[in-house]
């Protein structure tokens, strides 16, 4: 037995044994969230491959275990791509893992998030039933939007097996421009580009350098270049940034991410990297929990940590009301608590 049937059997058995499972794709995101000890591992890695791809539909249907890079190569060969820059931490990172973790790369503010491009999902539920939510068309408002709910749920609601994703034409030209400037000038520059129709598709400020990526046809890129002086940079920078492979990431043991209003002050935090037009901020090896005393409106994620350092929740704690809704949703999808228990919040195995 293999594929969906095998998943269904394993899941039913986990339920009847009361033995929870850890769902694992390429295993490249084990650092994100809690992984309880002693779980059986259910891997989706062998469940790979493209199920349906007609470039003129702008939709690809793919098995969750398909490596992001394999999918990307296929789409690029047809002059298309996933718009949200899905981060591939290494060659084994799967598209199912990216969607389950709800990860979007540098293009997020300009082309949308993973969830914005997820049109439908086929899932194996706690009782082994295979269910399809959303669809394989651009517009679909039948039923609650379960596929987007599953995106970013870290596999706590069910096993994500098949995904239908919107794809877009790849730009004719991509160009990275860098310039040295202060953080204030960098923020204003990005804002200036956002306030008009421009070819901006990524932005990052780090170590006194602003990098931006321009994407579009030649005229569009040229038009934006005319209002943005700088030096030619390397397009490979963005993949490294999204995969957290830049040296600054690699050298840190405790990586914090603040996701907030792009306009929020930097306060006293010594952010090493500010991307997404200053809406995503990275803090490395803080001496104490940066959530303590934080006066902004965003939320912090402890993306990687060294267990010998201070204790802190991985994800921003939810309000009591939000938590109660989460708990009820979790028990609707997973009454026996068998899927990735505690991956997001240890309390009540969420």
């Amino acid at each position, binding site marked *: 037995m293999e594929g969906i049937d095998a998943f269904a059997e394993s899941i039913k058995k986990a339920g009847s044994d009361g033995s929870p499972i850890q769902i694992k794709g390429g295993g490249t995101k084990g650092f994100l969230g809690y992984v309880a000890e002693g779980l059986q591992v259910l891997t989706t890695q062998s469940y790979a491959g493209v199920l349906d791809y*007609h470039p*003129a*539909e702008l*939709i690809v249907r793919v098995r969750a275990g398909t490596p992001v890079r394999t999918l990307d190569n296929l789409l690029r060969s047809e002059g298309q791509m996933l718009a949200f820059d899905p981060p591939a931490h290494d060659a084994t990172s799967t598209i199912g893992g990216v969607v389950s973790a709800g990860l*979007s790369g540098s293009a997020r*503010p300009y082309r*949308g*998030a993973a*969830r*914005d491009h997820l049109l439908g999902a086929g899932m194996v*539920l706690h*009782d082994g*039933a295979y269910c399809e*939510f959303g*669809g*394989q*068309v*651009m*517009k*679909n*408002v*039948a*039923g*609650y*939007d379960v596929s*987007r*709910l599953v*995106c970013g749920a870290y596999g706590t609601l069910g096993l994500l097996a098949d995904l239908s994703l919107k794809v*877009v*034409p*790849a730009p004719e030209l991509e160009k990275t421009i860098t310039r040295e400037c202060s953080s204030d000038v960098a923020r204003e520059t990005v804002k200036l580009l*956002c*306030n*008009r*129709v421009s*070819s901006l598709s990524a932005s990052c400020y780090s170590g006194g350098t602003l990098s931006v990526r321009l994407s*579009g*046809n030649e*005229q569009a890129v*040229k*038009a934006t270049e005319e209002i943005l002086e700088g030096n030619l940079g390397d397009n490979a920078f963005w993949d490294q940034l999204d995969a957290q492979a830049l040296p600054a990431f690699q050298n840190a043991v405790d990586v914090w991410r603040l*996701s*907030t*209003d*792009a*306009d929020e002050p930097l306060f006293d935090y010594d952010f090493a990297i500010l991307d997404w037009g200053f809406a995503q901020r990275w803090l490395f090896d803080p001496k104490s929990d940066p959530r303590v005393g934080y006066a902004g*409106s*965003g*939320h912090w*994620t402890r993306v990687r940590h060294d267990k010998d350092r201070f204790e802190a929740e991985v994800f*921003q704690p939810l309000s009591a*009301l939000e938590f109660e*809704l*989460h708990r*009820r*949703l979790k028990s*609707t*999808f997973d009454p026996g608590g068998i899927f990735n228990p505690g991956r*997001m*919040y240890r309390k009540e195995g969420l």
Partner: protein
Amino acid sequence: MPIDNQDFIKRLRAITSDIITDEERLAVYESDGLTAKKQLPGVVVIPDTIEQVQAITALCQSCEVPLVPRGAGTGLSGGAMPHHEGVLLVMARFNQVLDVDTSTRTATVQPGVTNLAISEAVSNLGLYYAPDPSSQIACTIGGNVAENSGGVHCLKYGLTVHNVKQLKVVLPGGELMVVGGKGYDTPGYDLLALMHGSEGMLGIVVEVIVQLLPKPPEVAVIMAAFSNVIDAANSVSGVISAGLLPAGLEMMDKLAIQAAESFVGAGYPEAAEAMLLCELDGSLGELEELIESVRAVFESNGCITFTVAFDAVEREKLWLGRKAAFPAVGRIAPDYYCMDGTIPRRELANVLQAITDLSHKYELQVANVFHAADGNLHPLILYDANDGDQLTRAEAFGSEILALCLEKGGTITGEHGVGVEKINEMCLQFNRDELGIFHGIKNAFDHYGILNPGKGIPTLSRCAEFGAMHVHRGEERFPHLDRF
């Protein structure tokens, strides 16, 4: 008085004095845009403040009285059809744009603000709100969230869910919850996405922060005529295959073209069998190249005329015919029945041919006006409601079209929602397990089932009954607004 519980009315009146209980005035609210589905509400309440909405909701929950939220009542699937023994919560007074933040290009608005009013409020800043359902002059942003509304610019700019950053929602217990935020994500499950298209069944939207976009510096609208619908359909696929992403790409067939032309005189090619309207936008210098690329695709698919409008007045005139197509069709037949299925784009030519065949089978004319690039069909079935047999045929015709959409891998509703209208067809699209999850989600938010009961998600027993009866659709509707 439909609700005769004097104690309940008294407690409601203690929250707000703006209550309607007399039948004459209740009749104003008896339906939404699906006018054939009528029901007098038990009582209408028109609150002014979020606190009142909270108190009303909590009261309804404690008394287990159904509560139906309503924006402008322009919905096409009966999502805001009142409940006879319930409260109709009219959000009309929540009509203010509260804040425009030019720095993050966002606007904080109340849910009763109309879709178009948002764009008008920020127009002088060079900004606009992208989703544009054609009822945009009247429909409210709260209703847009409830239905996850689309419009002609979806392919490039997305649906409502892609353009809303934050919601304030009153839950059935009266609690106020914020979902989303001014950043690009939030911790936990994506409740912001879940609220979109939930048809007022999970919570009541009381405030919305929308993302605004800068207006494109250059816009062109191409009008192209074809000698058959197959060529036009193939041109649509050709444009996408060529790596082009138009802001809008719409198709009309001969009957729709002629109806629109005689109604508004937009300058459409009346002799053509099909027509495409293609809007392109972009930064300066980008447009010429895009137009030439589209021209190459259209010409290779046998387009017979190709004209480009740059001028804002000319563009407006071309869109006017398209926007007025539904009422224009309404002038050539006593009644029409508007469908809203979506199919994979590659099936366009096949499905259009199948609809033509069905038109012969049922001996009813059909006009096609639709979002070609999204594969979102709006066949308009022409009939006369005074002729009972025509009505029966129109219903059966419509049902066959929806079944066809599902067979081709599509959906029963692309943008109009399920409401009460397509609740039976939900049984065709989803199985028992999937419907079970929907009911579980509803129960997680609304344990007592007070919010908009009977809409959106059919009960399993209803599906069993529907299966036994095969097809039993509701009555037809006569929308009074132009629609896409």
